[in-house]
């Protein structure tokens, strides 16, 4: 009966964050802090150098804000594109499958940097003159990163859809369900069981790929930090060890962002996980 109660409580309260997660999060933050303290004592400089942060601090925050904006723009776009591509490649509309294949092969093969440069420069020229601006180029460049990631996510979704046995679809149709509810309530939950782990991977890559915006002066964390380094350390206005502080801080921010997203994905994984369908443990 214990298992039954566990099921009931899980179902009535599906979005609460389990206590264990909070404990582990605290452990991570604590462990990370200790690591940084040790790092700075070994390197022999202060990570919280006042001189540096008084000039770099506001740039740092502005960069984080811009990077988060790019992520908020690109993540939903890439998932939508990936889902659509994956669905199309398994759909009964065969004629839609080959354009999806062309899309995927193109974006998988071409370096995202090249795509970002082309789209941000040439993209705005497709718009009427009064809309053309640097900002438009940046937005289009960011969207291009999403389209690129969407190609990879398309294959992840396709693998998930193809893992759902045909009988599941037939059973849903046989009780009179229409295609969209069948996807929503029968196919997708089962496909996600397979797709979520690689999707988390792709999200982590995507978050860090927003730093590609630096190549077109995107104003993101990576770009602003690099510019600050050029203007302070390399001109002699700042000290050489600032370089280590800046890039450590940047790395910590990217880590925190990817870690947050992949942890949220873990919660989602628990939701689509079906008891008794657990994999093997060797």
């Amino acid at each position: 009966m214990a298992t039954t109660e566990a099921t009931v409580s899980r179902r009535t309260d599906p979005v609460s964050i389990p206590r264990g997660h909070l404990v582990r999060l605290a452990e991570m933050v604590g462990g990370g802090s200790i690591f940084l303290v040790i790092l700075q004592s070994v390197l022999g400089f202060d990570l919280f150098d006042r001189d540096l942060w008084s000039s770099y601090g506001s740039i740092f925050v502005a960069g984080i804000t811009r990077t988060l904006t790019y992520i908020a723009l690109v993540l939903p776009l890439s998932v939508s594109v990936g889902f659509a591509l994956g669905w199309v490649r398994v759909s009964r509309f065969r004629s839609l499958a080959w354009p999806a294949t062309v899309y995927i092969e193109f974006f998988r093969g071409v370096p995202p940097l090249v795509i970002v440069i082309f789209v941000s420069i040439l993209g705005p020229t497709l718009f009427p003159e009064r809309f053309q601006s640097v900002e438009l180029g940046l937005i289009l460049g960011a969207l291009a990163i999403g389209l690129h990631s969407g190609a990879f996510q398309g294959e992840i979704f396709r693998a998930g859809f193809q893992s759902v046995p045909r009988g599941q679809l037939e059973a849903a149709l046989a009780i009179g369900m229409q295609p969209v509810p069948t996807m929503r309530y029968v196919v997708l939950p089962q496909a996600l069981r397979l797709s979520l782990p690689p999707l988390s991977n792709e999200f982590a890559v995507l978050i860090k790929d927003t730093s590609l915006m630096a190549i077109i002066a995107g104003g993101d964390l990576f770009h602003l930090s690099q510019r600050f380094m050029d203007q302070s350390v390399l001109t002699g206005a700042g000290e050489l060890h600032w370089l280590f502080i800046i890039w450590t801080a940047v790395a910590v921010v990217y880590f925190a962002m990817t870690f947050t997203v992949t942890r949220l994905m873990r919660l989602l994984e628990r939701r689509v996980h079906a008891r008794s369908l657990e994999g093997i443990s060797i």
Partner: protein
Amino acid sequence: MIRVEGIHKHFGPLHVLRGITFEVPRGEALVIIGPSGSGKSTLLRCINLLVEPDEGKVFIDGVQVNRQDIRPEWARQQVGMVFQSFNLFTHLTVLENVALGPIRVKGVAREVAEEKAKQLLARVGLAAKALSYPAELSGGQQQRVAIARALAMDPKAILFDEPTSALDPEYIREVLDVMAALAQDGMTMVVVTHEMGFASNVAERILFMDAGVIVEEGRPEEIFGNPKHERTRAFVSKILR
């Protein structure tokens, strides 16, 4: 209740159904027998339009359902189906499996649908398994849940596609008992099966199919005791041995 007229179906070069015509009156339990590859499953799937017939007409309750202006979903709500491999939704509990159709197809409120699902589970003897997942059940239990799931849509008829062929021998009885009780209650049923005991005790009529045509039809005692066609005789002698 169910009538098919001149059904043809091709899969590529294979001519699987070659002009099938028959009728199932309300409340009848009809059994279809025949060697594998004779088109029995395809015929069932044509009735609820999981497979679209190339030619011919399918009527449910007097309405032709394989027409452009009728959604196949409507036809499938009228006629339930039970599969050889159960096909329970693996990510849902037994209760959710049974209640999903009423909730998502008919728009029934969750509490109402789950209450009814519990009654149906009790009817197939599985009230205690409501919160289990399919993978935690035996094959026989899964198939009984599948029957409850079909019943939850209040179908006018149920199609059974070899419902006991994938079961271990010890679980066949419990599924056949549920089906026999359904027939007793007057459910219109079309059953593809190799269970000759069920066919002779429960079926009112038997169709023998071979190579995409209905070779012979008759009462169970005629088909098993005194088949008219050579092909029927050969098949019956093989399975009754």
